[in-house]
């Protein structure tokens, strides 16, 4: 968990247990308590809704439908001298950079450089001690986290945080709910708007599952999905909120090279569909391969910004990563 404020809400054990169990259980459809081995039920959404077999249809349904004030190529999100202090510790020291609409921006830096803090400042988990985050022309100010999501910033988590007792489809539908307005009265009496929204939600969620490639496991509980599918499901859930900006927090952690390649394809596909992507990643090859621009942080300060090729040559960056092979920085 990344948020000390409410992270203490869950117990330390909870977290520990979770990660331990993840390690054991993820991707294993093995033994039931009774020792009976069962196969998972595969319900392919394409099976339920045959049109989804066509990737073009999928991509169209997934594509964002929201009006964005920012023109393509203009700044979608701007960090303006953002400083973040925790007690005496300065985690971010007047960091400024911007994310332009339609690009894939990489945010890198050695451990403890403030990448995740930066991320949390954007998504409202922390409020900046100083400076401003301006999104789509308006400062985020004191918006609550769910309001920021509604404004159009979605994220995934470094340590997967799916709703594990829900099915994959339901997880994604929770994401689509961010755009819905039905509340208790509407749902209790099943008003027409509620029905319409429910229909839309399922339709879009199925398309999203197909889009990220877990369509075959729509009705499985999230916790029973293989690790890689869980990561992809998180992306689908984030996309479901119809973000203007999608923030991915180390989406390739724990992936093998083949999976990484598939992920790169997926990220490109997401961008191609009209989303803007912010990527935090340790894997240099992946970052260099997929991003348009890169911002480098070290000790809470921005030390470089530029295209992958420039970053590769930047002496400050090389110094920061000196002696550390790309792949092992994690």
């Amino acid at each position, binding site marked *: 968990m990344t948020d000390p404020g409410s992270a203490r809400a869950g117990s330390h054990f909870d977290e520990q247990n979770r990660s331990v169990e993840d390690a054991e259980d993820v991707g294993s459809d093995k033994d039931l308590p009774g020792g009976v081995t069962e196969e998972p039920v595969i319900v392919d959404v394409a099976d339920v809704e045959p049109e989804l077999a066509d990737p073009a249809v999928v991509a169209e349904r997934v594509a964002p439908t929201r009006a964005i004030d920012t023109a393509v190529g203009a700044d979608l999100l701007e960090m303006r001298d953002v400083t973040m202090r925790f007690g005496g510790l300065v985690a971010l020291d007047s960091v400024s950079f911007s994310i332009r609409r339609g690009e894939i921006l990489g945010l890198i830096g050695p451990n403890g450089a403030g990448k995740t803090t930066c991320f949390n400042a954007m998504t409202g988990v922390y409020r900046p001690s100083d400076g401003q985050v301006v999104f789509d022309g308006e400062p985020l100010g004191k918006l609550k986290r769910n309001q920021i999501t509604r404004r159009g910033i979605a994220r995934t988590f470094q340590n997967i945080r799916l709703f594990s007792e829900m099915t994959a*489809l339901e997880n994604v539908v929770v994401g689509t709910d961010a755009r819905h307005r039905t509340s208790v009265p509407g749902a209790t009496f099943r008003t027409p708007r509620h029905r319409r*929204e429910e229909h839309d939600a399922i339709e879009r969620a199925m398309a999203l599952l197909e889009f990220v490639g877990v369509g075959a496991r729509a009705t499985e509980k999230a916790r029973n999905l293989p690790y890689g599918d869980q990561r992809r499901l998180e992306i689908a859930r984030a996309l479901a909120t119809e973000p203007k900006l999608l923030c991915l927090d180390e989406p390739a952690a724990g992936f093998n090279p083949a999976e990484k390649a598939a992920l790169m394809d997926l990220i490109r596909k997401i961008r191609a569909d009209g989303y803007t992507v912010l990527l935090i990643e340790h894997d240099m090859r992946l970052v260099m391969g997929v991003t348009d621009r890169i911002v480098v942080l070290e000790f809470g300060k921005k030390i470089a910004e530029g295209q992958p090729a420039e970053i590769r040559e930047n002496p400050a960056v090389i110094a920061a990563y000196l002696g550390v092979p790309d792949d092992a920085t994690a």
Partner: protein
Amino acid sequence: MSTPVKQTSATPLGRPHAGVGDRFRLWWNAQSRPAQWAFGVPFILFIALVPILNIPVLTTVGTNFGAVMAQFGMIALIAIGLNVVVGQAGLLDLGYVGFYAVGAYTVALLTSPDSPWNQTGEGNWLSQDWAWLAVLPVAVCITAISGLLLGSPTLRLRGDYLAIVTLGFGEIVRLLADNLGEITGGGRGLSQVAYPQLGQTEANPGGLFSAGNVAGRINSGVWWFWLSLVLIMVVLLFVGNLERSRVGRAWVAIREDEDAAEIMGVPTFKFKLWAFTIGAAIGGLSGALYAGQVQFVTPTNFNVINSVLFLCAVVLGGQGNKLGVILGAFIIVYLPNFFLGRTDLFGIPINGNEIANYRYLFFGLALMVLMIFRPQGLLPARQKLLTYGRQLYVAARRTAKRQHGDAGTGDQHGTTGAEEVSR
């Protein structure tokens, strides 16, 4: 409490032949609405008839079965309400009895001649015959408001704090009823609370719902049971609608990971408050039934131990599972009565009164054992969170069958399901 759900014990869905329950569920989910009605209605009718069928071992000896079922109806409502709060939204409420009390006292205060706020009788705005029914929505509203008032400052607290705060609230409500003697009658309580005046006859001057109606098999207890059964159906329908909507998904998301839910755009505080308010309203409804049935309300009926029992009903039955918590309520109410006054069971002589006397001892042991071996309750939760998810369930069952080797049958369903999705 942001309780991470553990893998060890629950049998995951998506493994269809894991148990009879799961197989039944898959089958049931795949049925069409009319088919579900066709199976459901006779079953409900059967439940409704249970207290008058006089089934040998099932019928209680020491206490009237109809009256026991009436109490079961009320506790079942309570369990459904508490399940919204605890089972679905994951908020630990140890003071739920407070809402039960608020509901009961609202009815009693407005209709008991002992109360200074009595509104029945000459020159007042409630007619004697319809007083109970007229006050019922008032009770539900006032309880909902009390839930809102308690929830808005406290729901920002974390789980464990919420537990003790709600417990304190429950006690405060009881103590208020106790201490404000001028209004509530204090320990003397409020008697002659109004009840539905229906079907008065010569032999039955109080009507069908009067406590005095004990002649014959269909006594007042049975009538109250039927009334609560109707209310349970209505509440289940509404709560079911909520569960299969954005609201229910928000609750489950909050239960599983509140921070992640908020970051996914769920207005967590708002939906927690809704859960609390809805739970409170259902508790108040049950309290109003209580006041009507017993026609007498005192503070002692609303102490902490009852809160704990309600919570046990929910956990015992299976939190998050509506049918499960109803089963839990049945066990909590029925078991002590089952033994009371019984001298033999299947020919084996037993001292039922003695067993009933030790009920808390057995109950405590049973809880401990159950929590070790079946912490998810007797009927574990398998929430359905999508309004139009049936085609998926149909497909799931079809796939399950195909994997089993006997493929076929489901295709037609599949197509209709797809149409349903794409309108």
